[in-house]
């Protein structure tokens, strides 16, 4: 796995511990599960060190105002919210022990088929199987400070469907990357240059950790080793204001959608279409080509090129940071179309960021849901007046 930093090495150690228990059975249904599996294939129960509660709520990181270079991880705390089964997505009814809705009978997705993270009131992610695929090979992982806008990490991996166990590998990869970035980045000597170098190293380490986790979850002799895209957004408060960093390998995207003004696609896909455009082909024609969707870079045992493309954007306005898999952006390929959906979802759910992410996923399912859908969003700044005031028309609303 090449350039694994300290966190990556820790991760490997953890996994070898997990693998030492050679015969693992699901604590819920008793089915045998492969070593190191994150979910029971039979009943969908989450396994291993990560509890269901953590998967649903994410983990919180405490304030980073005085970030030392190496921050002790004991400052990370669980949210302590009780783990409960979500109500039925179809009718809102109670989901029974047998995982079917007690009202309408709809099969509740397993935790791997549909999971959410809401690490803080301003950050949320939803990862969903979609309507057509039999498995959810996408994965998300998030972490955020309690204080809105201070610091968050959004990670999306899109497992390649033709590869073996890419659902297990992508989730392990996403969490490994998040865990590298959970600790606030060291600022070196505090100069802009040293800060940038530290962040670039952290993002590169995160990709390397994801790579390490994916490789660790892939049998060495498999013909189609698990592979996944990698896209990560890191928002950090700097003296001049919040800065968004993005890193990607493959075609999962990061967007900045300001409340006013045009949205921007921050990442460039590592795809055949982009390669054709770079070679001079007309963009529309390139996207229509049969191989447009083929990715040219990915994480997995069959690649060594795992250094992400990194970019930086100072955030001078309020708006939404968005990371998503192609299961979402296929239905809104241009930044303007994506912005329309983000704004619509935001207006519909003025008080709940998780519902905004869920609305985007549901919109993609409605649009066809041909692929797995991952959405991770962070709200920067207060909601615009229009989002809370225009529909409710509350004259007493103090917001101006």
């Amino acid at each position, binding site marked *: 796995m090449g350039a694994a930093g300290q966190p990556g090495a820790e991760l490997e150690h953890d996994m070898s511990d997990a693998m030492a228990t050679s015969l693992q059975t699901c604590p819920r249904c008793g089915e045998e599960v492969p070593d190191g599996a994150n979910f029971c294939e039979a009943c969908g129960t989450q396994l291993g060190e990560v509890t269901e509660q953590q998967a649903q709520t994410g983990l919180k990181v405490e304030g980073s105002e005085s970030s030392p270079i190496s921050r002790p991880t004991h400052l990370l705390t669980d949210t302590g919210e009780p783990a409960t089964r979500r109500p039925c997505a179809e009718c809102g009814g109670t989901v029974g022990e*047998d995982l*079917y*809705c*007690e*009202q*309408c*009978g*709809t099969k509740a997705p397993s935790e791997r088929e549909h999971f959410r993270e809401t690490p803080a009131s301003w950050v949320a992610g939803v990862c969903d199987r979609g309507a057509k695929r039999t498995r959810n090979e996408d994965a998300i992982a998030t972490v955020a400070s309690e204080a809105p806008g201070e610091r968050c990490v959004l990670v999306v991996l899109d497992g390649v469907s033709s590869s073996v166990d890419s659902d297990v590998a992508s989730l392990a990869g996403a969490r490994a990357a998040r865990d590298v970035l959970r600790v606030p980045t060291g600022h070196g000597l505090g100069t802009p240059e040293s800060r940038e170098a530290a962040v670039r190293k952290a993002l590169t380490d995160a990709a390397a950790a994801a790579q390490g986790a994916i490789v660790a979850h892939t049998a060495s002799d498999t013909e189609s080793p698990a592979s996944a895209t990698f896209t990560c957004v890191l928002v950090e408060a700097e003296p001049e204001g919040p800065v968004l960093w993005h890193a990607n390998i493959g075609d999962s995207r990061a967007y900045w959608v300001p409340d006013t003004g045009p949205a921007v696609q921050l990442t460039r896909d590592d795809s055949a279409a982009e390669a054709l455009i770079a070679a001079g082909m007309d963009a529309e024609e390139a996207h229509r080509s049969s191989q447009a969707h083929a990715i040219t870079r990915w994480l997995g045992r069959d690649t060594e090129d795992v250094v992400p493309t990194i970019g930086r954007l100072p955030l001078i306005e309020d708006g939404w940071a968005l990371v998503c898999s192609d299961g979402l952006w296929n239905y809104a390929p241009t930044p303007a179309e994506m912005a329309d959906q983000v704004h619509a979802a935001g207006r519909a759910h003025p008080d709940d960021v998780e519902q905004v992410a869920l609305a985007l996923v549901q919109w993609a399912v409605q649009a066809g849901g041909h692929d797995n859908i991952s959405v991770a969003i962070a709200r920067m700044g207060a909601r615009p007046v229009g989002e809370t005031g225009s529909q409710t028309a509350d004259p007493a609303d103090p917001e101006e």
Partner: protein
Amino acid sequence: MAEFSATVYQNEYLPDGGTDVNAIVTITCVGAGVAGQTGAGDAGEIIIIDTSGSMGDLEMEQAKQAAQAALAEIVDGTYFAVVSGNGAAFLAYPHVRTGPGMVRMSPQTRAEASRAIAQLTSGGGTAIGTWLDLTGQLFYSVPQVIQRHAILLTDGENNEAPEVLDAAIGRAMGVYQVDCRGVGTSWKVEEIRRIATNLLGTVDIIPQPHQMSDQFRDIMRTSMARGVAEAELRVWTPQGAHILFVRQVSPTVEELTSRRRPINDLTGGYPTGAWADESRDYHVSVRLAAKALGQEQLAARVQLVIHEQVHAQGLVKAKWSADHSLTAPIDEQVAHYTGQTELAAMIQEGLAAKSAGDDATATQKLGRAVQLAEQTGNDEATAKLRKVVDVEDAETGTVRLKRSVERADEMALDTASTKTTRIRR
């Protein structure tokens, strides 16, 4: 302690737009124990003997012996009574005028009851409704008896108006179970089947008086093996779904659909009576609103419930698929029992048409019955049908009605029409 298990046989795949889900749910009970001996409550047995004037001397003697054979099978400690019936019902044993009308079985009470049976004489009419009512009152007189079963023997047509009998059946429903036997050929199958079906029992013909003792012994032995006093089949269906039917299909076909007792908005309970170590099959048919391709949902939860405790559960599912090879096959069990249910209907309708003089309809229905019996491998039905019709071609169902048919053979075909066979699994 009895243990129940449920197995579901179905093709859960539905085509695009498909709405109807069919499943066979097999419920199996093991470790049922002995009636009244499991600590859950006492068992009670009542033997009802027809003593109407139509019972000849030979029938009467054989009926008495049969009743005594049944007594011998009743486990000591079980509450019991003997009722003799003609135009009215009489408590033949125990000899009481007030208070509890049943006593516990012991060597002494068995001997007393046997002597009482020996003294019975025949005379008078047949008012089965009064027999059922007295039986109910006797069970009510001993509240600790929670498992209530009776054997009813008759040889003739009921003299009461149909609505009088139906009212008595209605009063007995849910109170006790009755296995009915008709001796000779003067009784009406339809009438006695109505009693047995509603009171969760069996019906059969005893063509010859000397066969009575064996029959009674078997019935009582079976009843004593039912250590589970009462169980309910519960069927949950999702909101907006519609139950097309719920039907027991093995060991016999019994329509349960109309016997639904609402538990809540989505769940209904159907009575199943007492259980021995045995296995019963239920056919559940549910109509759902079609969902999109690739969607999965639960079509029914089928549970066996005793005293509000779920002892077994089977899940009937629906998955919509565009793959014709998945959606096209009909589950083997569902197909088999669908055929067996139609077989029962064809036999009953065919015999009814025959007795009404409609030979064309009778030939057509019984021909279809021969075809179904052949296809589903129901050899008993095939053998009984061949005594009523001459079969030209079983495969196509081409038959001719026999010119002269023994009345007993026709009644045997009728009473056995609801018996089904299983297919090998």
